[in-house]
């Protein structure tokens, strides 16, 4: 398990939650520090959305769940003003325009209307302000939900599958914005079942399976930790592909290829997050 970070924004200790007889979360413990992008990975039904609902005060739980040092069961309006959320269901008023949707939240948060233009610009919807939400594509709705989430400059943003079903370029734009927010000190709590997204975006991840955390830490480190084979995959300039054991005995062979200028590509063979998840749980991550 990874080290507990200092300066924690989210703190969970032995969090449990059941629906009837079904135990959805079984003793979840971790902390998320300020300015971190933390990813919660797991297949559908693993308990990701339940955990977000607990953290945002929508569901009660056993154990101890805190954000900004306050118990999640007693989050007041003051604390909600420090939180932004992009949830699976965008929660936008379909008959209203993008501007009207953001004006509502600007009024609620007492944010000047000038910020609305800025937020729309950041998500690339500056030209669509007067469009009704029902006329927007799924990607545009998701970006509008993101604009709403950042309108009041929250310190913590929850993102539940923010790029699910989006085209790669829109997903990339959302990733860029996430990195920009992080650079300004915003903490991002991301749930996803997209392992590439988690690997590229997150400082740390927790792998969630059937309500339990099976691994926690930096995604690259996790992959390295679970690398059982030490094979190097080599491609030469003439197209030949080789698998060489990563050991001192084969160092000369690799060096020879380099000296001859025949080395085109060389890859180590760490598993990806999906493979790690499969190894730990026997289940596929993106199901």
């Amino acid at each position, binding site marked *: 398990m990874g080290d507990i970070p200092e300066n924690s924004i989210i703190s969970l200790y032995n969090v449990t939650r059941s629906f009837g007889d079904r135990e959805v979360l079984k003793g979840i413990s971790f902390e998320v520090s300020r300015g971190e992008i933390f990813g919660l990975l797991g297949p559908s039904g693993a308990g990701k959305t339940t955990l977000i609902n607990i953290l945002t005060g929508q569901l009660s739980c056993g154990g101890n769940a805190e954000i900004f040092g306050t118990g999640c069961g007693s989050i007041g309006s003051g*604390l909600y003003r420090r939180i932004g959320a992009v949830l699976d269901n965008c929660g936008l008023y379909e008959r209203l325009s993008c501007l009207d949707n953001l004006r509502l939240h600007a009024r609620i948060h007492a944010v000047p209307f000038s910020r609305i233009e800025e937020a729309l610009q950041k998500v690339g919807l500056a030209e669509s302000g007067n469009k009704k939400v029902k006329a927007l594509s799924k990607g545009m709705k998701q970006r509008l939900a993101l604009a709403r989430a950042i309108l009041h400059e929250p310190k913590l943003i929850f993102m539940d599958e923010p790029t699910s079903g989006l085209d790669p370029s829109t997903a990339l734009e959302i990733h860029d914005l996430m990195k920009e927010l992080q650079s300004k000190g915003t903490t991002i709590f991301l749930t996803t079942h997209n392992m590439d997204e988690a690997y590229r975006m997150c400082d740390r991840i927790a792998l969630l399976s059937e309500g339990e955390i099976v691994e926690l830490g930096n995604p690259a480190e996790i992959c390295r930790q679970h690398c059982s084979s030490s094979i190097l995959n080599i491609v030469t300039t003439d197209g030949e592909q080789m698998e060489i054991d990563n050991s001192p005995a084969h160092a000369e062979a690799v060096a020879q290829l380099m000296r001859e200028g025949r080395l085109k590509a060389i890859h180590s063979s760490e598993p990806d997050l999906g493979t790690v998840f499969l190894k730990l749980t026997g289940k596929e991550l993106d199901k």
Partner: protein
Amino acid sequence: MKTIIALLIKQCKDSLRNLPSLMILIIYPAVAFVMIMAMKGEEGMDNVFVPMFAAMHCSFAPLVISSNILSEEKEKGTLRSLIMAGVSRVKVLISLSVFVLVSVLLTGSAFLLMKEFTVQTAASFAAAMLTGAAVSTLIGLCIGIYSKNVTAANGLAVPVGLVFALLPMLGQFNEGIAKIAKYTYSGQFREVFEGGEFTLNTTLVPAAYFVALSILLLVLFRRKGME
């Protein structure tokens, strides 16, 4: 207060773009006007149609609209986004109720132009319209909280609304129904809409509904939490 105003502004804009809701708000005053105009030669038709459609308006429109708005907020996830923005559930209910009451009162004021009223009977009319709409709104909120989505809410709200809207009218033609109708708040207010005064019955019956429905709303709110 600024949150409630923000929600009211949103609700006004949204409802103006929601044709079915607009239709429900204007249908009974419009039908009453058409009926009175169509039977202009007959004397006293305003005394028949205004109380009849006013009772329908104050019972059906707020009930269906409030349940519809609340269940739609739940279904579309907008309620959750409001809660996540720090808006309390109580403020959502208050703003919704204020919007429904004001819009029903405004559209219902058209009845005052269709029949002769004194200042006193007009004041009684407005008070009955407001109280009837308040009771109907409570029923609508209970249905909205109880229902998971708009379809389920409409499936309950429309028949319940029709019962309270039609019983007073049907009571005019059938004594048996009249006996039942007098125990409905809409049936009691119909007498006020006819130009009568508030009596013990026209006060007690709606008050009993108001208290019982407030308790039911509280219980549902605590048990279901609007999720």
